[in-house]
């Protein structure tokens, strides 16, 4: 099934699963949407190959596919 179709119905459900798996990681800031059916993973800092591979495994295992964006936000989010 094409990724876009697979995600359309359960985007929020997949996002919830990704939050559970990815937000505890110290180098992940947040999870968002880049485009209509594409996730973005916001990073606190540039990540290593191992960390990148871990994110890829989580994305694939949770049904998010492998078309996602990694965005370095340059530091943790704090109150303004």
């Amino acid at each position: 099934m094409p990724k876009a179709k697979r995600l359309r119905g359960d985007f929020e459900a997949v996002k919830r699963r990704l939050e559970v798996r990815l937000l505890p990681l110290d180098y992940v800031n947040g999870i968002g949407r880049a485009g209509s059916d594409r996730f973005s993973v916001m990073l606190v800092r540039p990540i290593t190959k191992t960390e990148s591979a871990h994110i890829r495994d989580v994305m694939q295992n949770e049904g998010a596919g492998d078309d996602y964006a990694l965005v370095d936000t340059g530091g943790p989010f704090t109150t303004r």
Partner: protein
Amino acid sequence: MSKLSRNSIPGKLKAAKRNAMRYFSPRGTPALAGLAALSDPKHNVVGIGIGHKLVKGKSTGDHSIRFYVERKIDKKVIPKKFRLPKRVGNVGTDVIETGRFVVLESPQRRRMRPVRPGCSIGCQPKDGHLMAATFGAIVAKDRKHYVLSNNHVLANENKLPLGSPIFQPGLRDKNAPRKDRIAKLSHFIRLKVRGRNKVDCAIALLAKKTRWNAAVLPRVNELKSGDPIPAAVKMVVEKTGRATGYTTGKIEDVSFTVKVGYASGTLTFVDQILISGDGKKPFSGGGDSGSLVVDRKSKRPVGLLFGGGSSRFAVANHASDVLQHLGVTIVA
């Protein structure tokens, strides 16, 4: 011509400057600022330094003691006793008009009556530290008017009791708690250290004597409607905040889940708006919390700013969520 750096200033120049300082230290403007009074170096000299002597804007290459003055006055009208010396010791002098130096203060941080969204506001945390952030909007409920901002701005992250005083400007900008009390904390949505948050918001009831104006400070200005418009990706938004003033940005995400560092811990927020700056200027900085994010096209509220990452990204609650949680409407 010898170059002057702070470490290479000759001892005789430093001694001459010290001498000059002793006699002509800046004192400020006299109460009666007539020409004669202004020509008194005690008032007219606003700074003393060391540099090359300038003649018609060009350096002669000679070292000199520089007198920086508010106004360069024709020698003929200056009483002899007020004339600046041609030499200090054996070092020549120069007179340069600079005007009076003032502290560069952004207008949002000033005391403002009537109070207006976009200006400085804050609470008085019990630990005694001074804080200031941004007044988001005037909101209404049951014919009463309130200040809208974040929980962490008005209630210090759930820590303050209802009825606590709110100040404009925030005490960090001007520590005048007796004079600047404008409202009292009346309702906040609790921030949860465990679990998922949707909003960081609070309201404070404006005191009867507090004059207010619902128009956001320039360049956001008046809203066309207080009714929020749903945030959309690529929407161009604007805000006026205490720290960075007026800025514009673009919405990147409307269902963003994010971890945000608070004094009480790292909190998780879901369904947030992610905004990126327009590239010329960051969208937000420390002290912009509470700013109302407005759709530039429709001039309707979109979000309530509360967090940010690097200078590039800022995070805001959806305005509709904030209003729903608090049961209020924005006054346009």
